[in-house]
């Protein structure tokens, strides 16, 4: 079974490298700032001992005041997993850096988040709608769609 690492274990390690990057850390996940997301993700991928080389999933949640994007990372080498979250407080045009450069699997998943939630990802090579058709107005999975 894959060991689910708790956020607090990793938080102290990350705080040393990127001070101020981690907003809060709990037993199940790690909440980071949007600006430092890319460097923390690169650190998680490349550090020996962490080696998160497989991105299981990216999903997004619409809490009424912010969007939260959840990254589920797994390390095949060490057989442990971690959940990293970021928040976007901008409702009109939320943007986040894209992690496609680190994990290719993020390509379609970020397109799906863009399509259904409206969160743009900077640096994504092909950010366009994937499940809905080009020309569809709106982002359906937002709470204020209907």
């Amino acid at each position: 079974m894959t060991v689910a690492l708790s956020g607090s274990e990793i938080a102290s390690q990350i705080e040393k490298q990127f001070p101020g990057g981690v907003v809060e850390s709990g037993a199940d996940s790690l909440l980071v700032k949007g600006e430092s997301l890319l460097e923390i993700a690169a650190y998680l991928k490349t550090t020996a001992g962490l080696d998160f080389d497989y991105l299981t999933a990216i999903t997004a949640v619409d809490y009424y005041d912010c969007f939260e994007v959840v990254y589920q990372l797994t390390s095949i080498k060490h057989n442990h997993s971690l959940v990293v979250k970021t928040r976007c407080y901008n409702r009109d045009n939320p943007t986040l850096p894209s992690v496609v450069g680190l994990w290719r699997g993020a390509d379609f998943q970020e397109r799906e988040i863009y399509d259904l939630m409206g969160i743009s990802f900077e640096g994504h090579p092909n950010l366009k709608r994937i499940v809905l058709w080009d020309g569809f107005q709106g982002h359906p999975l937002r709470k204020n769609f209907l």
Partner: protein
Amino acid sequence: MEVEEVYSSSELDRKEGKAINELIARSQEPIPDPDQWLDEELKRNILLTSVDAMLDWARRSSLWPVFCFPACCAFEFMTTAASRFDISRFGMEIVRASPRQADLMITAGTLTWKMAPQVKRIYDQMAEPKWVIAMGACAISGGIFRSSYSVVPGYNRIIPVDVYVPGCPPRPEALLYGIRMLHQKIAKMSIAAKGK
């Protein structure tokens, strides 16, 4: 037929999106069911009754369905086609992928607007005479997904439907009953009347 050379995928996306939006705009009202020739008093020509009977028997005895199985009702169709509830006894085990060789479209599953132009095109490419059985709640009216942003509220928005088989999904016996209803409908067709 002129063939447009489309080179970039963004052009393809835009064309597809435009086609879907146009289809949505055109399909705001359901197409009326083709049943006008059922109700009127058919003045049957005595000479043609046996010709009618023979033609209708031939047409209804081997309805070949075309593939149109977007979602879960397809499983019930597969069950109907399998050995316990055989549709081969009706001559229907030949499910053709090509619409040119089919004369029945059993629409088994929820239809999304993104897939709708393709289904409509396949229906248009079927040769006449052709019939449609709307199978399942999603095919009749959109089912539980009726108010969704991406679901077509019933196949009769885009194609004319002859028989509606309710259920979610309809049991194989229900689908066979619907097929029997279609046979009875075809048996009433007269080539002397104005119908299909």
